[in-house]
């Protein structure tokens, strides 16, 4: 049954299989797509959106054979994901290759959407995830991803400002930021 969509929640990976309806009793080709969407409704919508662009089939003339939710393969193993994106900016359409470190494909794609919105003001409707691949550490290209591959990496927490929700603002001394 349809679950209420939670804003800001991680996207889900759906595998959709659909085909154009056959007018005569001929066999029609079947198409499969991987869609990252917050729920099934959006997943189906995006499926038809992409299929319509690539093949001569519309939702009216087609049917979805299967919609399945893909689960996380290894939720405790950190992977480097390379994501090939196509997005529409204000002046044109561009391809991008972006890298994210995450524990799941859905986590990485969600990061990508948030990142594109932040850095390029790209809304979800103008972003197309063309390909997502788990890459070996040696094949990563971005320094932000590469810096995490050092097993001797140490992160200090200088001047750590923590949110003091219950502490009063009227105190004699400033809170300590030492960690």
């Amino acid at each position, binding site marked *: 049954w349809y679950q209420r969509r939670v804003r800001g929640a991680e996207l889900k990976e759906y595998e959709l299989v659909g085909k154009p309806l056959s007018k005569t009793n001929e066999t029609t080709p079947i198409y499969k797509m991987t869609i990252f969407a917050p729920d099934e409704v959006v997943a189906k919508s995006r499926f038809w959106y992409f299929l319509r662009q690539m093949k001569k089939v519309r939702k009216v003339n087609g049917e979805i054979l299967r919609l399945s939710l893909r689960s996380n393969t290894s939720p405790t193993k950190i992977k480097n994901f390379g994501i090939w994106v196509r997005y529409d900016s204000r002046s044109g359409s561009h391809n991008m290759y972006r890298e994210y470190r995450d524990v799941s494909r859905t986590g990485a794609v969600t990061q990508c959407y948030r990142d594109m919105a932040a850095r390029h003001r790209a809304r979800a409707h103008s972003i197309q995830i063309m390909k997502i691949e788990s890459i070996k550490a040696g094949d990563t290209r971005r320094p932000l991803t590469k810096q*995490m591959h050092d097993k001797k*990496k140490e992160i200090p927490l200088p001047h750590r400002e923590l949110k003091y929700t219950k502490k009063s603002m009227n105190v004699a001394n400033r809170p300590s930021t030492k960690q």
Partner: protein
Amino acid sequence: MLYQRYIEIGRLCYIRLGDNAGKTCVVVDLVDQKRLLVDGPHCGLPRQVIRLKNLAITDLKVKIPRGCKTKTVRDALTKDDISTKFLQSSLSKKAEAKKSKAGLGDFERFKLRVEKTAHNRKIRSTVRKLKKSS
């Protein structure tokens, strides 16, 4: 040294916020600048990704390889007896004190107030006497 404590593989961290608040965990790997893969077999905490903002770093550290299995983490923790060492730290003691204070009943809180007033009164009278004599 400017910084004593670092977020690094093997560092014991204390979870400040969230569902698992109050438990300690060991850093097994770093996802990115804000998230860590932690494991807490000594506390019954399953391996998971946690945000840095939910953690506080402790002084304690174990020697484990990056991304090792939970069994390795458990063995390293028991070998160094980290659980008892953590209980001696000020962070643990403060957390314990906070918890006991929150668990006080109304009568206990009254008793605490009476004792605190008596204690402060004693201090102030002694200070006053010293000021008068000097």
